[in-house]
């Protein structure tokens, strides 16, 4: 596991370079990279052959912009061919500036407009529940600025009240929200009944622990703090 993790993660800069053309990547372009890698490598029970399996875990990328890290991880995990990365965003590519679930294997939701992933995740958990599928996890990634969208707060309240222990929201906090969150992002979730864990978004072991330690009868919010946006 450890060896696979190291070699797999070491491949990501090369995959990213196929898209960016640069050897070196800015913090902004990789703010989600460690979180995504930990999720796909150590947390989510999902694989390219199981995308029609109702019992698979779901990962919903709500913050759809800057999807290079997402595409790189999907390529590393065999969902897409690394050869597709180089011309991403072109008319001939199916990899857009925002991912499209109808075109890209492994992509659970089409995103781009902010504030849709968490509400869709709530609906997905309700759908799994109604079908007596109590084990699959639904993990949704949002950005700290994305929380500006009011639709998230409709969702945060309901998830807490519905005691959704199948749900995890991971907030990539790169301090990019224009008006900020006095008292911290975690408080917005805590007051609605969520378990919250604030971790270093570059510390993969801490992230893995935050994602996998139990949170019975309550949804989980992991606040992954990374370098502030320039």
């Amino acid at each position, binding site marked *: 596991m450890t060896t696979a993790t190291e070699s797999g993660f070491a491949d990501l800069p090369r995959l990213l370079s196929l898209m960016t053309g640069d050897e070196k990547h800015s913090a902004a372009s990789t703010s989600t990279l460690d979180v995504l890698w930990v999720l796909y490598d150590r947390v989510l029970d999902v694989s390219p052959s199981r995308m029609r399996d109702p019992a698979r875990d779901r990962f919903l990328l709500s913050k759809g912009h800057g999807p290079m890290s997402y595409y790189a991880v999907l390529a590393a995990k065999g969902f897409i061919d690394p050869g597709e990365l180089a011309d991403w965003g072109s008319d001939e590519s199916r990899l857009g500036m925002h991912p499209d679930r109808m075109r890209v294997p492994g992509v659970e939701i089409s995103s781009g407009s902010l504030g849709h992933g968490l509400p869709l995740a709530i*609906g997905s958990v309700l759908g799994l529940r109604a079908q007596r599928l109590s084990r699959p996890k639904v993990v949704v990634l949002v950005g700290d600025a994305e929380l500006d969208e009011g639709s998230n707060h409709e969702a945060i309240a309901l998830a807490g009240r519905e005691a959704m222990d199948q749900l995890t929201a991971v907030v990539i906090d790169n301090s990019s929200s224009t008006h900020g969150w006095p008292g911290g992002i975690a408080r917005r979730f805590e007051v609605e009944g969520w378990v919250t864990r604030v971790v270093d978004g570059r510390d993969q072991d801490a992230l893995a622990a935050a994602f996998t330690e139990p949170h019975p009868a309550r949804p989980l919010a992991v606040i992954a703090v990374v370098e502030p946006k320039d």
Partner: protein
Amino acid sequence: MSMRETFLSTMDEALDVDPQLAVVLADISADQLAAAKLRHPDRVLNVGIREQLLISVAGGLALTGMRPVVHTFASFLVERPFEQIKLDLVHQGVGAVLVSSGASYDMANAGRTHQSPADVALIDTLPCWTVHVPGHAEEARRLVLESLVGDCNVYIRLSEQANAAPHLAPGFQTLQRGRTGVVVAVGPTLDKVLAATSGTDVTVLYASTIRPFDAAGLRAAVEVTGVADVVLVEPYLAGTSALFVADAFADVPHRLRSLGVRRGAEVRGYGDMADHDLAHGLDETSIAVAVKEFLR
């Protein structure tokens, strides 16, 4: 029973039969489905007064293979969360059945905030929707049951305005034949149209399903009539279906008069449905005058 009561009792029954069905509410009509919720707590879902979440939850449910039925007043079902309809249903490639009540001005004295004459026009901006505008509770029940099958997006527009008798056949139904032109009555406008055209030499078609638009049915009626002069009477924004008539007669010279809720003014009056029919020219007399002036 009203269309809305019929819809709710229909869902109460349907939930017992199909385990993939879920009803999503935003407080409106939650009391009427309380008994169903006791039997099916995981499939009668009330998100509170959160209409963006209302639609997104339906999208999420559909992503897991459920068939969601979403219900509230038209203004809060279609207009307020329009981007959620566009993205969390259509763009995700999943389907739901949206069932509104309130129509253009059922709640006339509640004012503009509770009036939604633009709903069908907004849905028309999105691809691949079926739109039902029942004119009778029995039609509503039939159309709701048919919509539960399949996985497409369906909009069902219920109203407190209704016709005396149901007309259950699919497509545009011919209720009167004449030689001076064709009047298409949509949903609850039918009885007023029949009264307005009584004794006149016009064909009257009735539509409780307006999308897909039955262009073949309209063309057939025009061929029998011999005159490509059409009056559309719709209970929502005037001219909502005008594009579809134009497409149906793309190769035929034709004339069209569109009656419906007027677009040109913010109607601030209260009163009742009849007052608003009058304000928009959708009362029997106004329809009769408009038809007589246009089809001669």
